[in-house]
């Protein structure tokens, strides 16, 4: 579930892949209110942070998708 929408992904996809393939470009909102998406895709830059199953600040590029996962963007 991405922001309440149900999506299907290939086995082994990361959360970042699920979001990008679903057309999401703004993963989070910066401290000054700008939209941000993945920069490094390797766990370094922290730009792809999203809330996963209620836990904030998870790096979407490192998290594997699992069935029933709830992802919230824009935090």
């Amino acid at each position: 579930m991405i922001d309440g929408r149900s999506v299907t992904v290939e086995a082994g996809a990361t959360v970042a892949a699920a979001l990008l393939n679903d057309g999401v470009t703004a993963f989070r909102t910066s401290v000054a209110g700008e939209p941000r998406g993945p920069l490094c895709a390797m766990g370094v830059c922290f730009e792809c942070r999203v809330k996963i199953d209620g836990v904030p600040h998870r790096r979407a590029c490192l998290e594997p998708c699992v069935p029933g996962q709830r992802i919230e963007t824009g935090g």
Partner: protein
Amino acid sequence: MAERIETDVAVVGAGPAGVAAACRAAECGARVVLVDENPRPGGQIWRHGAAAAIPAAARAWLARLQRSGARLVMGAAVVDAAPEAWLLVEQGGHCLRIEARQLVLATGARELFLPFPGWTLPNVMGVGAAQALLKSGVSFRGREVVVAGSGPLLLPVAAALAAAGARLRLVAEQAPAADVRRFAAGLWRQPGKLALAARYRAGFLRTPYRTGVWIAAARGDGRLQQVTLTDGRATWSMACDLLCCAHGLVPNLELPRLLRCGLAQGAVAVDEQQRTSLAAVYCAGEPTGVGGVERALVEGEIAGLAAADQPAEAGLRARRARLRRFAAALRAAFRPRDELRRLADPRTLVCRCEDVALSRLQPGWGMRQAKLVTRTGMGPCQGRICGPALEFLFGWEPDTVRPPLKPVALSILGEEP
């Protein structure tokens, strides 16, 4: 519950160097623990998963790792360490303390991101980043893509994007044509590398590959719509919806610096056995000087053998010497040009975590003062993106590294055994 693991050799980083070190040490009979932040071993270059196959050599190393008896601790970030030696690791919300006789640091490298107007827009990302996303299942089919930056990585990523159905508009290498030509001419001793470069180039033949061209700006409303490029004389814009831009690699030195390993020329200094200035700490691969997968493997093998008290074969040492010369030539040919220091305008954000604009920084400061006055480098990435950029822009030395190395819940530190 916190767990304590005792081992002979703890290896940090499961890319080629770490995998080679873990294999060789474990095959000598040492107890080995291999720690990595990613869910699977392989590092960035051997990243595999949803949509990615890896070369036969990589598969062979990963199969060898499985057989070696080394214990894999994946999805685990090192948050603290001491050279005595131990590691404190966060895995799945829990704390692990790994006590070892020897540490092998194989922390790899990250991309160098230099700020330019618009670089914070969504759909502006790294070159290796696009590769990593492709491998993790992202579809770039039909996307209008510009690849701009520096280094040999541009070629395989451009080829992979073209093969994945992206509409590749331009591949721009910032290094001058003469430097790239001289480097390519020096490759005659390594026909395998020339053939590989030719094969990658053949993968995007309909797209121009231009040297001496670099990014000037990116524009868009909420996301990327247009990029501006320059060759120093002419400046032009192109429509695109994905910009892959990075200026080579910088080694991940946070853990070596936390441990206070001696450094030389921006890399960890090591002896013939890959031992750092600390008796129980070895280092292999990109942190000793960015140099690619083959050099990382050889250094990893030597470090793993040394950590298990075994001498390295003469053949390994000879290969290391040859690959180090190649790495030095590569770094010289693709070093970022001076003009890249002047891309950012006063409003361009330099620190993306804390949204600090260039105009708020004074070149005469250092990283410490920038932190204190503006919070530059104090967000979640802890200066990993803006630090190398500011080192390039202003010559600022990195500030002292302190634990935790990665943001971590206090409850996890409180759990420490």
